[in-house]
């Protein structure tokens, strides 16, 4: 029983309806032929694997069939926010650290 907010359906839906589709905000190199093999491999295969805040794509497979982004804590599985494709996260590891610093 884990509910995730779909920014297109605009409501909380059960996790069963979704599937995880990998790290978000990975931009394809504008001119692949001009970059090194190492840079291409980095784009193609290598993903960050953070302990804590991770920005990732989710797919509302059984619902509206739209991809969207989520900011999730990989330790607690807490989904801090979800936002539409093309938007940037309002919550990052830095803003959370900042908020934590302000509170103490």
């Amino acid at each position, binding site marked *: 029983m884990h509910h995730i907010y779909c920014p*297109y359906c605009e*409501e909380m839906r059960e996790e069963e309806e979704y599937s995880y589709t990998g790290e978000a905000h990975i931009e394809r190199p504008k001119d692949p032929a001009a970059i090194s093999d190492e840079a291409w491999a980095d784009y193609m295969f290598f993903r960050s694997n953070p302990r804590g805040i991770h920005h990732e794509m989710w797919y509302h497979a059984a619902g509206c069939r739209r991809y969207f982004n989520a900011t999730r804590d990989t330790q607690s599985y807490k989904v801090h926010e979800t936002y539409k494709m093309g938007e940037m996260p309002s919550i990052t590891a830095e803003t959370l650290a900042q908020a934590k610093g302000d509170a103490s």
Partner: protein
Amino acid sequence: MTNFDTSTSMESPLRHRVAHTNAANAGVVMKEDKYRGHLNLRGNPQDAAFTSAVEKVLGVALPMAPSSSVRNGDTVVYWLCPNEWLLIVANGTQGQVEADLRSAMDGQHIAVTDISSGQTLVNLSGTGLTELMQKSTVYDCHESNFPVGKVVQTTFAKTGTTMCKLEDGSYDLVIRRSFSDYFFLWLRDASDEYGLSVA
């Protein structure tokens, strides 16, 4: 073997379940609204030329709010995502509606797809319906969360479905043809304690 519906050359996905009834006062009643025309429509909701052309053909404006629907006689329009709708029209009229939509939106960046043969519409009602839905779907079907006219795409016994709440409290479910037999077997099992009648 149960009775097969041979009255038409078309075969409903649930044709072999037509005569199935296992309770006199069944708590769950299933009625297939077969052979309806199903059209999938995609277009840009911000484009006034698109929305006005669709409204002219269907007689109603496309529902823009998430999870909403509109009805106009035999025509039902379900919101599927911000640029996708499901039109369910009277049996046999889908070809004409598709042609009308195409001519009204000539030159626009749109898609109209006839998916009538791939899915079917099933109505569920009865006194055991609430409990049946609680067993079958992960979605919260309480009236505070699922008012009349709302359309929800979710899972029903793990298969995909698009469901709409009707004024009489029953649900219209759009199910895949390829999953219709599985759907029925699940329904028969889940409604065993209330009794199932297939109208």
